[in-house]
């Protein structure tokens, strides 16, 4: 367990400021550093650096009573700003940098309830020491022109984190988390991944998303581990960071795991590698294990943070095929058991005793999950229910491990993004010549995730090739949502009800492949 925090129960109510001062002064962590390849800072420098940010923001009229939006990058300046906002118990929204060209759909307007927007300036120098890092050089502050104070009183509202759901491309729901709950969830992750201040953690996934933040960055900070942050990583950048940093723990995506298997030598091993965002194929985990060390699947969401993960010490087959067991305090249940559990009955002991795996929709009761959904004006849309419907289908084994089979609805996971087929259809319908479009998926895995095909019917008299439609998709869809193939059909098969017969279409598309 953690060398610094040693499992003390007082930790549970410890403010983040205390955590920062502990990791900054403990002999185990004070000389550990945070790096992004350019800027490096040691834990012992954190108090001074965070105070400098505080001074700078106060000069600009920003205090802990303001609600700010941070467009966070995987950089030391980004990490420092993020730690500052947590330490001073701001309520703040985390957003991807608007410079992320490829993720067009992430570029939604700033929520109206955020008074200021903080953006990070790239550091141009090859390598600079944190001592010469002044907030004025890396942090840009803009007042939000669309700012509208919330209608309800917010003076007392502190220590909240706002995240957009990674859900469909169209919806604008914002998830509200209490900082304390996030830290509790992060401690859960520290325990499951067995992180300590002896670890060197490379974070190759964005820290503005729940995965990178809640399962990677915050746990690594709490453990006092050395941290390497990678922005917009790819194979070349990853290998370069790795040669320098020599990580013992890595937070990856399934696509990165796959790339490392193709191109990385086996000379260095990890104590633990974590993947999340989409299901990893069992054969990838087995191959990774053999060459690079234990790889675990993490399961979670923007709403709940880390939910379930195998431990690096779990047996290979458990890690290869399941998301392990739920983190401390978390209950995962088949939809059918939820009413009984709500009524206070014991989790279905008879079903476990029957020793037969069950498959059902996955529901989660999380002690550290989100509080509520709000809209861009800070109005509550819906408070979190006791049980969160994940929308995933899962197989529950008698040993308590859980295997995710895929989405229960018409959506797919691509590049770690949840994509609703209906959202892609809506986008392609905007192409003038397209009269009707149905997007479908098969269980086949392509490089960006589950296979996507768009079947289009054109308006009479229009001429457009499948290739031309796909080219237009590059302008109207984010990269991860572009169908792998486009088919132009004379008409779509229908069911007696008149609805499109998706199964028949899937068969038809399959026949084209054969």
């Amino acid at each position: 367990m953690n060398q610094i925090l040693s499992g003390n129960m007082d930790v549970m109510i410890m403010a983040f400021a205390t955590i920062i001062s502990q990791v900054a002064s403990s002999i185990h962590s004070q000389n550990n550093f945070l790096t992004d390849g350019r800027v490096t800072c040691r834990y012992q420098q954190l108090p001074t650096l965070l105070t400098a940010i505080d001074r700078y923001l106060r000069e600009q009229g920003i205090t802990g009573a303001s609600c700010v939006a941070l467009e966070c990058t995987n950089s030391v300046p980004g990490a420092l700003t993020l730690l500052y906002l947590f330490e001073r118990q701001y309520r703040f929204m985390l957003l991807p940098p608007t410079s992320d060209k490829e993720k067009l759909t992430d570029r939604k307007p700033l929520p109206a309830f955020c008074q200021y927007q903080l953006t990070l300036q790239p550091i141009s120098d090859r390598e600079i020491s944190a001592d010469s890092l002044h907030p004025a050089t890396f942090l840009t502050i803009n007042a939000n022109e669309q700012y509208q104070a919330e209608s309800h009183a917010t003076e007392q509202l502190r220590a909240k984190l706002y995240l957009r759901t990674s859900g469909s491309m169209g919806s604008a729901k914002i998830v509200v988390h209490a900082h304390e709950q996030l830290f509790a969830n992060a401690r859960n992750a520290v325990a499951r991944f067995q992180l300590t201040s002896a670890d060197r953690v490379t974070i190759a996934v964005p820290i503005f998303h729940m995965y990178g933040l809640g399962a990677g960055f915050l746990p690594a900070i709490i453990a006092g581990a050395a941290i390497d942050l990678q922005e917009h990583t790819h194979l070349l950048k990853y290998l370069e960071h790795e040669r320098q940093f020599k990580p013992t723990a890595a937070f990856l995506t399934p696509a990165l795991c796959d790339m490392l298997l193709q191109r990385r030598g086996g000379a260095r091993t990890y104590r633990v590698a974590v993947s999340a965002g989409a299901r990893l194929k069992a054969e990838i985990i087995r191959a990774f294990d053999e060459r690079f060390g234990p790889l675990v699947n993490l399961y979670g969401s923007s709403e709940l943070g880390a939910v379930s993960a195998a431990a690096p010490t779990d047996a290979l087959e458990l890690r290869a095929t399941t998301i392990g067991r739920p983190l401390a305090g978390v209950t995962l249940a088949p939809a059918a058991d939820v009413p009984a559990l709500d009524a206070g009955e014991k989790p279905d002991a008879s079903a476990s005793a029957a020793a037969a795996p069950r498959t059902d929709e996955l529901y989660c009761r999380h002690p550290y999950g989100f509080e509520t959904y709000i809209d861009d004006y800070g109005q509550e849309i819906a408070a979190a229910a006791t049980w969160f419907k994940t929308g995933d289908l899962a197989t529950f084994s008698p040993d308590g491990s859980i295997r995710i089979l895929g989405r229960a609805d018409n959506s797919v996971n691509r590049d770690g993004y949840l994509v609703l087929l209906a959202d892609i259809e809506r986008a392609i319908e905007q192409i003038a010549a397209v009269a009707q479009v149905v997007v479908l998926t098969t269980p086949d895995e392509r490089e960006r995730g589950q296979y996507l095909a768009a079947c289009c019917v054109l308006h009479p008299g229009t001429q457009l090739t499948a290739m031309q439609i796909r080219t237009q998709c590059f302008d109207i869809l984010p990269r991860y949502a572009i169908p792998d193939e486009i088919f132009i059909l004379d008409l779509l098969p229908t069911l007696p009800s008149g609805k499109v017969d998706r199964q028949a279409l899937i068969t038809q598309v399959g026949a084209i492949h054969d």
Partner: protein
Amino acid sequence: MIESTIDQLRQIIAEQLDVNIRIDDIQADTPLFEEGLGLDSIAIMAFITLIEENFGFQFAEDELTMEPFQNLTTLAQFVSAKLEVPQN
């Protein structure tokens, strides 16, 4: 030699890579990543493989660094040097 290698690389990007970049938008000094062509991690993997297939050599792991992949000029220089040295 370098010029023709650059042209070959431009063609690979425009015609063989699934990225929707027009050949006219690719200059010898255009950065390949975010600030230039914006190749993402999947495109870069595919590009590496296509270079190997088109030029008939394999990258060693220690050759997979950012250095040669700055732009097509640096990449063409790397490819040319690689082709001059007999493969062992």
